[in-house]
């Protein structure tokens, strides 16, 4: 038990509406009343934001030790005290009259937009005007009007007439997201929410302001006029975008997802989410869906086929062949289990890998030995005394981790260090300092080392981080970028591990699993990684076929697609892609909203979700793999997702001997001189990712791709901020405007997959030596 938990919290008893209630010291009156089930109307009050007392709607009569306040007080700003007697609108005519008066004043300038307002039907102002307002208006003057709607970013629209000046949005942006791009301007009757003209509301978390706005003043451009609350069927779901593990709510109207909201999971995302999770769901309807199975005919073209036909064609191409499996990092745990079992049972191979990104043997070793035993959680971040970010950008790669860090950073100036080449905007907000990992020394047992997936790209980074954690007792966590990676690792979608973390190399683990699966034996030869599978496909006597899940080859390397060309490819996809274009058999699968499943977040906690679009007919990957395995005569027998869930639960985790991590020595960064530079990159949260397709409003708030260089290099090149430079190697070039920042003189940073800056397809690598010249 930590010391915080042992500290006794002083409890205070007060009386509200004649009922006694005992709450911890510091509790606000409005919250104590909630505990009794007494609802005091409010707009500005939000449990996760600091008290503001801005709307004055929650006025109550307060008396302490027999001395009454002369006027009603705002219950959202007053903490309870011993001997306090509170009378709410239920027992005090004064409080009731005060609340009705405030409501009347709020409604004076509020337009009668309810029929056309997106909030209509789920609006706290509407509801509380009914419950705590007057029956009719006495106001006969002219309402104050503004131009509307004003787009404060491409995705958020502001209607100042509707605003009740509760300051929820401005407090959220400042306190939670650290993006104070939105403030209350002017004073008095003209007070209004506004942005700085040259600095639009380009926050990664702006969608939360739309969700917490108690009126329809902030609305989302994408959901504008699409539905009314009573049209929508809401389903609890999990976010498929990153490994943060947000709870989500998906709202469906007539079989179509119309919006997604942040769900409420106090241990993960609290009540927030990022704009990508909120608004990037149109990928499903943008590209042409694969609606029927397809088989490549004699003429070299794909033709629509029946399911038995396509399954037979795929089975014929895979049966008895040496084949590999590329899973991709976006699968659910159940589907990953299906791929894992399919590779071992139907194909008899360990050639399976979920990593559709640059990777190394060091990372394989790390993942198969240590990664699954890491027990670090969000709660550890809240208590940490020092957080070291190893090749990890919280705001870009796992935004909820960023929100947690920012909360502590704001509250108690949490020390944050990063190994990144430059301090990004997110890290700047955290007050992070750049360090070399080898020189970090002041870690304690309360410190946390967060390792990102890009640690695999710099040799020795993982080894150093592991050694550092062992030496100091600091907690270690591996935070991949994609939602399915942690689950896929647990389900054995990697060459070295079987489901449940059973090592392939351990005979007893293999026997254990073979018995559970009812097969004679499992393959013993160590499998290939993603890049090895791709290389082996083009070599004589190695791999002859490959089964590809949701993988974009350009995420792996520039050559990956061409490596798939001369082999038998079975593609399981939701939409037509570069892989389906070259595949021999294409099998359509269900997207996340169309199936049941679960994701494991970076902590390892499992977030299950149900089928949101109830009438969808598409089938989950695991069902299709079962059909395929049956056609090959070696069934994996996982006919439904629920059957898979049961099988996963019955298998449990491996408690036997683990693989040992094989650390390697750190490599030194390549040295660059003259007009050469050492290029580093990472993906921005909003970029050209496949799952963000079709959402132009969201793309409008993506950060513009710029090449980040040091002032010395800028001087050498003779460029100023905004001038174009050409970043090239022998494969291709990028032309980007520069921004001069604090970065090593021999380095250059560009975004990895943004508009005008797609590093892997253009330059063929994600980090290395490039030539930088003035364009």
């Amino acid at each position, binding site marked *: 038990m930590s010391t915080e938990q042992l500290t006794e919290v002083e409890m205070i008893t007060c009386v509200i509406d004649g009922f006694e209630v005992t709450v911890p010291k510091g509790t606000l009156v409005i919250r104590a009343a909630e505990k009794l089930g007494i609802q005091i109307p409010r707009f500005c009050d939000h449990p996760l934001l600091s008290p503001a007392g801005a709307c004055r709607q929650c006025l109550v009569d307060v008396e302490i030790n027999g001395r009454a306040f002369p006027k009603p007080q705002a219950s959202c700003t007053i903490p309870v005290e011993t001997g306090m007697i509170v009378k709410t609108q239920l027992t005090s005519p004064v409080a009731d009259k005060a609340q009705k008066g405030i409501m009347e004043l709020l409604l004076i300038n509020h337009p009668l937009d309810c*029929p056309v307002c997106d909030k209509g039907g789920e609006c706290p102002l509407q509801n509380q005007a009914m419950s705590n307002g007057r029956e009719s208006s006495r106001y006969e003057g002219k309402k104050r009007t503004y131009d509307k*709607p004003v787009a404060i970013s491409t995705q958020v629209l502001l209607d100042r007439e509707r605003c009740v000046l509760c300051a929820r949005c401005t407090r959220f942006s400042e306190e939670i997201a650290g993006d104070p791009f939105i403030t209350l301007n002017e004073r008095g009757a003209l007070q209004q929410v506004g942005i700085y003209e040259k600095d639009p509301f380009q926050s990664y978390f702006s969608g939360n302001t739309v969700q917490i706005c108690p009126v329809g003043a902030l609305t989302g451009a994408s959901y504008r006029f699409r539905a009314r609350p009573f*049209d929508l069927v809401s389903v609890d779901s999990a976010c498929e975008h990153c490994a943060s593990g947000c709870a989500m709510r998906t709202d469906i109207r007539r079989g179509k997802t119309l919006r997604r909201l942040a769900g409420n999971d106090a241990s993960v995302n609290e009540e927030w989410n990022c704009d990508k999770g909120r608004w990037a769901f149109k990928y499903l309807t943008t590209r042409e869906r694969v609606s029927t199975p397809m088989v490549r005919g004699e003429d070299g073209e794909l033709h629509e086929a029946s399911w038995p036909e396509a399954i037979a064609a795929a089975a014929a191409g895979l049966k008895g062949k040496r084949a590999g499996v590329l899973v991709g990092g976006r699968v659910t745990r159940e589907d990953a289990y299906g791929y894992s079992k399919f590779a071992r049972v139907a194909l008899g191979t360990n050639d399976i890998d979920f990593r559709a990104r640059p990777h190394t043997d060091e990372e394989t070793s790390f993942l198969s030995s240590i990664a699954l035993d890491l027990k670090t959680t969000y709660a550890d971040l809240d208590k940490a005394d020092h957080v070291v970010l190893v090749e990890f950008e919280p705001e870009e790669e796992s935004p909820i981790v960023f929100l947690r860090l920012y909360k502590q950073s704001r509250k108690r100036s949490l020390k944050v260090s990063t190994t990144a080449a430059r301090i990004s905007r997110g890290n700047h907000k955290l007050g992070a300092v750049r360090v070399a990992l080898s020189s970090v020394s002041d870690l304690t047992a309360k410190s946390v080392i967060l390792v990102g997936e890009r640690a695999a790209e710099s040799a020795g980074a993982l080894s150093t981080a592991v050694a550092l954690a062992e030496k100091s007792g600091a907690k270690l966590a591996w935070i991949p970028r994609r939602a399915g990676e942690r689950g896929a690792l647990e389900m054995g979608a990697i060459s070295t591990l079987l489901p449940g973390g059973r090592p392939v190399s351990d005979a007893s683990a293999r026997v254990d699993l073979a018995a559970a699966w009812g097969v004679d034996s499992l393959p013993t030869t160590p499998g290939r990684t993603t890049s090895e599978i791709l290389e082996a496909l083009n070599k004589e006597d190695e791999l002859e076929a490959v089964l590809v899940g949701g993988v974009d080859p350009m995420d792996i390397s520039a050559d990956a697609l061409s490596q798939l060309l001369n082999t038998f490819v079975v593609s399981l996809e939701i939409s037509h892609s570069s892989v389906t274009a070259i595949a021999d058999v294409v099998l359509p699968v269900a997207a996340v909203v169309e199936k049941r499943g679960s994701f494991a977040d970076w902590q390892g906690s499992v977030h299950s979700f149900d089928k949101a679009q109830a009438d969808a007919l598409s089938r989950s990957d695991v069902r299709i793999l079962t059909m395929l395995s049956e056609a090959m005569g070696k069934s994996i027998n996982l006919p439904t997702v629920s059957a898979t869930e049961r099988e996963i639960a019955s298998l449990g985790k491996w408690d036997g001997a683990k693989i040992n991590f094989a650390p390697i020595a750190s490599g030194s960064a390549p040295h660059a001189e003259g007009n050469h530079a050492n290029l580093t990159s990472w993906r921005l949260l909003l970029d050209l990712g496949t799952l963000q397709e079709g959402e132009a409003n969201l793309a409008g708030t993506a950060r513009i791709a710029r090449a980040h260089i040091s002032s010395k290099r800028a001087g050498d090149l003779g460029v100023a901020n905004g001038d174009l430079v050409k970043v090239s190697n022998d494969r291709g070039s990028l032309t980007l405007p520069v921004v001069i920042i604090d970065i090593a003189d021999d380095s250059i940073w560009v975004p990895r997959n943004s508009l005008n800056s797609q590093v892997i397809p253009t330059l063929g690598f994600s980090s290395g030596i490039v030539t930088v010249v003035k364009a």
Partner: protein
Amino acid sequence: MAENSLTPRYPDLGLIAAAKSEKKIEGDELKAKGFFTQLQGFWVTFITMFKKVNTVNYPEVKEPTAARFHGRHQLNRYDDGLEKCIGCELCAWACPADAILVEAGDNTETERFSPGERYGKVYQINYLRCVFCGLCIEACPTRALTMTNEYELADDDRAKLIYEKQDLLGEMRAGMVPAPHPMYPDTTDTNYYRGEVTKAHPSQGTPIGEVNA
């Protein structure tokens, strides 16, 4: 009590008594009674020939309904031709039979169907479901939806009884400009709502019934 409960509720026409009676009616007595009874019957028929007739030769002749008869719905327009419907779906919300489907759209500068920001993009009423209760009319905040007296809503195809927006929109009156077109200059949706826009402005387009010279 038992006897009481068996007493017929309808007036005793003497049939029970006659049935119980020992006396038989026969001969001349029967003839005289029967003859006058028949005349009495024909008299009713004869008199009715001179009374006002209620039936009409439908469908050749159609009588007007009561003024407030609940018939087919109509989507109304403002006097300049813009639609009154703002796509708020309150009619769909009010409908007890779930007969109405509305999907709203965003008016743009180039394509405007109604004053204000929002218009009804999809509007369907399913007359297989509608019970003509008129709650939708009460719910409509802009008086866009009203009911006509039209009652001839029968067809041989169920699909044809789902009326689309173009089937429901009221006819263009002279002086109206077909939507989409801009709002009357220097007005807001409030002016429209208050009935202050009474005709189309030349800048809005060529009205129906006028030909550009």
